[in-house]
């Protein structure tokens, strides 16, 4: 797509793009290049010199038990987050779609959590499940269940998943609701005349019709759980107990800033770079589809 009518000039357009080129160059391309460069070296412990190791950092990483475990943790985490944020959102959207009056009010109320930062969401959920003062952990205790996410791997994972998915429910709700509203009423009514019940209509007509939105949300939510949940994990578990909630992005931070293992951290960044690339390609493929329905 090109404009037919354009202005003449060379200095002006270059001046116009200059700020963006400068900022992207200094704060994006240079650091990204550095990450790739550093991933080929192992700095000595005093940071005075570094030794070229080729793909050594990558070989080491891929044979590192902890790193491989982190891959699995990330997979489990992102699948769970995606499910936990999409299913309730879909249910709420299906309900809201049945209403003629009041749907707008519910939407306004449900938007709230989207505005809550992941790190703040982490603090809220930590507060509810705190082993000493948490309300929910206390009631669980009354029921005879001893909640302790500080020691128990599965409970820690469950808590960071729910805290990460919580604010995301709003986002998914908005997209599902918009998609449902766009489903032609005549199709649904025709099915109703033929005697299809609500759930039959939902599963055989409505959900297939909104499947492009579902695929789109699936990809977007996976991207979210990979890259934007750092705040939740850092506030609630700091990657623990042991490494039970250390997802890939958290490990880049932990190895780079706490462990000071710059070579390994850079190599992890490069691996993540490929993961993002793959996800972006998938995302654009689905977005293409989404436009055509």
């Amino acid at each position, binding site marked *: 797509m090109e404009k037919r009518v354009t202005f003449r000039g060379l200095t002006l357009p270059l001046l116009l793009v200059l700020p963006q080129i400068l900022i992207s160059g200094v704060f994006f391309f240079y650091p990204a290049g*550095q990450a790739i460069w550093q991933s080929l070296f192992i700095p000595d412990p005093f940071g005075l010199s570094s030794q070229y190791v080729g793909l050594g950092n990558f070989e080491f990483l891929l044979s590192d038990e902890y790193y491989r475990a982190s891959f699995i943790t990330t997979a489990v985490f992102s699948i769970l987050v995606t499910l936990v944020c999409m299913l309730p959102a879909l249910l709420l959207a299906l309900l809201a779609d049945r209403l003629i009056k009041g749907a707008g009010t519910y939407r306004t109320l449900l938007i709230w959590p989207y505005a*809550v930062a992941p790190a*703040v969401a982490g603090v809220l959920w930590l507060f509810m499940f705190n082993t000493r003062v948490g309300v929910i952990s206390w009631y669980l205790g009354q029921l005879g269940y001893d909640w302790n996410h500080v020691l128990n791997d599965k409970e820690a994972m469950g808590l960071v998943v729910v805290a990460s998915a919580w604010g995301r429910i709003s986002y998914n709700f908005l997209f599902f609701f918009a998609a449902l509203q766009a489903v032609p009423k005549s199709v649904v009514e025709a099915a109703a005349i033929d005697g299809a019940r609500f759930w039959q209509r939902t599963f055989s007509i409505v959900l297939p019709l909104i499947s492009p939105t579902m695929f789109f949300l699936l990809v977007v939510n996976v991207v979210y759980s990979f890259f934007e949940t750092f705040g939740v994990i850092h506030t609630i578990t700091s990657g623990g107990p042991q490494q039970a909630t250390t997802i890939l992005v958290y490990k880049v931070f932990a190895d780079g800033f706490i462990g000071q293992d710059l070579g390994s951290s850079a190599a992890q960044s490069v691996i993540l770079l490929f993961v993002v690339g793959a996800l972006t390609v998938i995302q654009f493929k689905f977005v293409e589809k989404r436009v055509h329905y």
Partner: protein
Amino acid sequence: MFSILKPRSTNEPLPGMVEKRGASLWLTHVLMILGVLVVFFPIWLAFVASTVSQPEIVSPPMPLLPGDQFLENYKRALFSGINVPVATMLFNSLIMALGISFGKIAISLLSAFAIVYFRFPGRNVFFWMIFITLMLPVEVRIVPTYEVVAGFGMLNSYSGLIFPLIASATATFLFRQFFMTIPDELAEAARVDGASPMRFFFDIVLPMSRTNIAALFVILFIYGWNQYLWPLLITTDPDMNTIVMGIKQMFPSGDDTADWPVIMATSMLAMIPPVIVVVSMQKLFIRGLVDSEK
């Protein structure tokens, strides 16, 4: 058996086929309200905790209805805080969020205008450069970006908080898409009338982009306000902490009990500005969401 053909009495309203009435309608409302309550519960609990005293919280179960310490807790949070007054952190967050929103919108408007309305050498290279920056979140390149910022002496500064986060081109991409939809006749007319490109930009393009700019502002404001990892790395001086990253710093290290009422008051203060922006500009917000994901 022919009751189905019985003519409908004329004053009975025609119900839609699939809209729910009566009991089923109420059930839908009840379920919906339940859903909203469950989703809202964490926020409610934080609010309650911010209005009661510490002893009420540390002897569980804490009350589920607000107490009378509202003013006391918020005053303590805002003006003394734990490491630094929360008012300072709020101010820092505001500067950061506004800086990111305005900065990104300004540089993106200019470069998108150049890409769409000019032919200059390197234009395609530039466009692809922009495309690549869409893919890499700051989390992935933190260590080298930190080194760059430290090298410029921008640790603990607003520019250090803002610049690395505007180095991505989502907004440029968006404005480019929008500028492509502006009718060519407008640019033609401007050229015939002898208007300079910048005159055309300020008098035609900018006013036409108002809604897009506002929608993008909502999204960027929340994005900037809610940043966590980046401020955590570069603001070691408590006076430069932003509120979202500062909350975690309020927890004591070791075994001491956290000052929950103040922490929860701070959490409420941290979520109020973005919530106000989202709720009051709901239409723009939804539009911004849809635009920025396209």
